[in-house]
């Protein structure tokens, strides 16, 4: 992340969703994808683990989200539904640690070529800007 005033966000994205939206990940900045969002592509959003989400926060992320397919369009049938359960688990953990659960989110977006993929990155960036830096920052 180049701009220290921008929130550090990690996005775990389903391979199909990410490529359907951009065709070429190198083009993302040109399409308006926020530079403060670090992309980690997964073969399916259902591959995300609770540990990986938590470790992103441990390693300093201000916000973390998973982007997967709509419930009924997942290439692996239930991948994005499984991912949502894991994100919900982490939301509950954050709440129990008195950290805003809104710092983690699950987005189910269309696999049709459109800007949903970029819009959720922008939405998460704005949300985390409102919440401010992670309470783990600088500690």
């Amino acid at each position, binding site marked *: 992340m180049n701009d220290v005033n921008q929130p550090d966000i990690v996005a775990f994205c389903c391979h199909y969703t990410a490529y359907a939206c951009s065709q070429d990940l190198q083009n993302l900045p040109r399409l308006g994808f926020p530079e403060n969002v670090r992309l980690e592509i997964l073969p399916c959003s259902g591959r995300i683990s609770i540990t990986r989400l*938590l470790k992103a926060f*441990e390693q300093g992320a201000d916000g973390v989200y998973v982007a997967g397919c709509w419930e009924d369009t997942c290439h692996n049938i239930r991948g994005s539904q499984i991912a949502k359960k894991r994100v919900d688990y982490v939301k509950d953990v954050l709440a129990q640690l008195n950290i805003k659960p809104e710092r983690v989110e699950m987005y189910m977006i269309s696999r049709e070529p459109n800007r949903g993929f970029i819009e959720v990155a922008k939405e998460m960036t704005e949300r985390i800007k409102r919440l401010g830096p992670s309470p783990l920052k600088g500690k």
Partner: protein
Amino acid sequence: MIVGERKPIQEIVGMLKGMKKILILGCGGCVSVCSAGGEKEVEILASILRIDRKKGGEPIETVEKTLTRQCDTEYLEGLKDEAGNYDAILSMACGVGVNYLADMYPKTPVLPALNTSFMGVSEEQGVWSERCAGCGDCVLDRTGGLCPIARCSKRLLNGPCGGSQNGKCEISPNVACVWQLIYDRLKGLNQLEKLKDIFPVKDWSSSLHGGPRKIVREDLKL
């Protein structure tokens, strides 16, 4: 298997107050199967605790290990060279593992990360329910294999009681009346006559009423 679930995070956090280095110890037995205290859950809890401490500006060092079982001497002995290196061992085993760790390592605090719930079955992914109360004097031959000790809310031996309504227990419409289940099963087996045998007063001395239980098998001892 023995079914457990992780304690609320703040309860665990409270136990670890002031500690700087802990061993989070998983168990590869029952609690691993019920996704409460196996290798994956150790990794998750360690991360949660590090996040909490980092947030509070008091980092904690977590060492993560999972033993094949925590209820066997041979596996716990493997910790003898390192148990003293920790402020505490946070066990993710059932209460049996926590007890045995405490027995074997008197100088190291041992803490429970789980609540041990019951002996039960996996009905489906993510759903467990009780089947055995470990009373030490099994009556299942007389009840069609269904346990009135573990599954009747009143532990009645000559049920059902008046709270059985439409096959459900009066404590909740989601709880089956096991005496209804016993009746239905014995009827299906043409063994309804078994219900005419009245259970005498149960001798609970084989249960916890007789004190801590122990089995010694001379034929197996070395």
